């Protein structure tokens, strides 16, 4: 395991490219990609934050823990992005990495589940509480090899403190958020950005002869990852007939 641990939460380090003790770059921004199966609950939270003021009540904090952090214990999987812009390829890679393993995203799936939507948060490191720590953990990225180098484990001591920080970040507009859905094409857009990034790194992608550096995942082989990415990006819609 490549250790790149560092303590987060220092506003003075926000946006820098300083190295941590192990010499690895400290991520500027983190993409906390959560598969919010209950997109509307995510939207209610965003709505209530936008119309409220901190400190946020315990009920709202609990809902962030329930619906955004999915009640998960430390550490959380997060991905690195260069900016908090949803069009950042780090965001797109994180979205795909967090979702590609779903059965209904596969090429041979009968149909994509209705309501199969995703809420994401793009969080500057400085928004997080000082008690969190980040560890570079590419091997913990399960099923989308191109996102390996962007994967970190976010360890926290108090999920409610983390949730409160997220709420404050949303309220002060330092944390960005997206609602991605199938029907309006916003999810596909992220897949297209990720696919484009992969083309620039690996060249033309062919599921039957995947690049050597594209490793198999925990549940998807490298070929299945490429096949599913192309399916999610719906590249057939614009692909050249000669290709």
């Amino acid at each position, binding site marked *: 395991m490549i250790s790149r641990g560092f303590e987060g939460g220092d506003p003075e380090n926000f946006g820098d490219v300083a190295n941590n003790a192990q010499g690895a770059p400290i991520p500027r921004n983190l993409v906390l990609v959560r598969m919010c199966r*209950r*997109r*509307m*609950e995510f*939207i*209610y939270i*965003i*709505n*209530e934050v*936008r*119309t409220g003021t901190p400190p946020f009540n315990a009920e709202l904090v609990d809902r962030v823990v*329930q619906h955004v952090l999915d009640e998960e214990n430390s550490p959380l999987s997060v991905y690195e992005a260069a900016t908090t812009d949803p069009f950042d390829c780090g965001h797109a890679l994180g979205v795909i990495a967090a979702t590609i393993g779903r059965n209904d995203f596969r090429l041979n799936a009968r149909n994509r589940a*209705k*309501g199969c*939507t995703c809420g994401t948060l793009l969080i500057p490191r400085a928004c997080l509480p000082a008690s969190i720590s980040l560890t570079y953990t590419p091997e913990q990225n399960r099923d989308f090899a191109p996102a390996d180098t962007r994967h970190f484990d976010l360890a926290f001591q108090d999920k409610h403190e983390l949730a409160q920080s997220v709420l404050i970040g949303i309220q002060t507009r330092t944390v960005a958020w997206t*609602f991605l*859905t199938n*029907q*309006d094409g*916003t999810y596909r857009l992220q897949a297209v950005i990720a696919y484009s990034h992969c083309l620039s790194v690996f060249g033309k992608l062919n599921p039957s002869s995947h690049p050597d550096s594209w490793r198999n995942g925990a549940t998807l082989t490298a070929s299945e990852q490429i096949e599913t990415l192309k399916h999610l990006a719906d590249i057939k819609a614009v692909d050249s007939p000669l290709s």
Partner: protein
Amino acid sequence: MNTDSETALLDIGTARRSLDSLDRTDLDFWYNPRQRRPLDDARTGNPEPPEEHPLESSTEGWISFLPKQGMIARTTAGGGIHLIWLSPRAYPHIGSKFKRAVASKTLAEMLRRMAEALFSETAQIQEGPLFIDYLDDYLNARTRLERIDRSYQQFAPSHAASGWWTLQLRHHTPLDLPKVISIHLETLHNPGQREEEMYAAVDAIVEWLAEGTEEQEAAIVDPVQSLPPTGKRILFSACADAELHLSHPPLLRAIARCVSAHDKRLAQAATASLLLCGGAFGKSLLQEALRDVTAVPHAQLVRGIIALLNRQ
């Protein structure tokens, strides 16, 4: 043209000629047939209680379309004919409204919805294929109507070559709620139920509703209205997440009543489901609910949801 618009008893032989001379004002008699009678009565000074037109109670009959010109409804018993004038232009976004119309219970309801579907789009009249072409596409798709006669032969053989369309409405008995759906609705009633279990129940209900008939929506109106706020909120949220198309007016009205709920999440869920699932009727119900903001305890959150969803 027959000016006795309350009954508009025109025989088929004169219908086509009459359609040519109808104009928009003729809609009035159809939209407000019962109001028209008192006005007439006021003129004559002879008030009488309005009589129900045969179409208002008929569950069997036909609605026929004359390309570019109009539509006619007649009961199976031959009770009476209503005429509606159509614009010759296409209305490209009326599919969902027609879906709503063909699920009507009575001929009058069906005709009214057809007219609403057409004339509520008047601001969007566009050049393009004729209405009848659109209807052709639509009716070739799935509808619950038992028979659609392009030839119009069964209604008026002499018009077989004129290109009439005929929709036949037959009586449909109300749908019984499947037992499994009733059990899931029971789950939403239980105050001690874990939310995850409630979410699992609504997923099954939404999956069933996604089959998309208005009878199904009608069947859950009463059970939904009796749900506690948490059950309603979870169900409405799941409908919005799934972007279902809901078209049964009583169901949408039941949702709209929750916009003014004291439960802030229920108010937001009702708003979201009206916006995402209810089409134009859902949006109009939402506008209506917000007309008196003092009656909406969480009006700011409701407006916030509208803003968030409209920016998507």
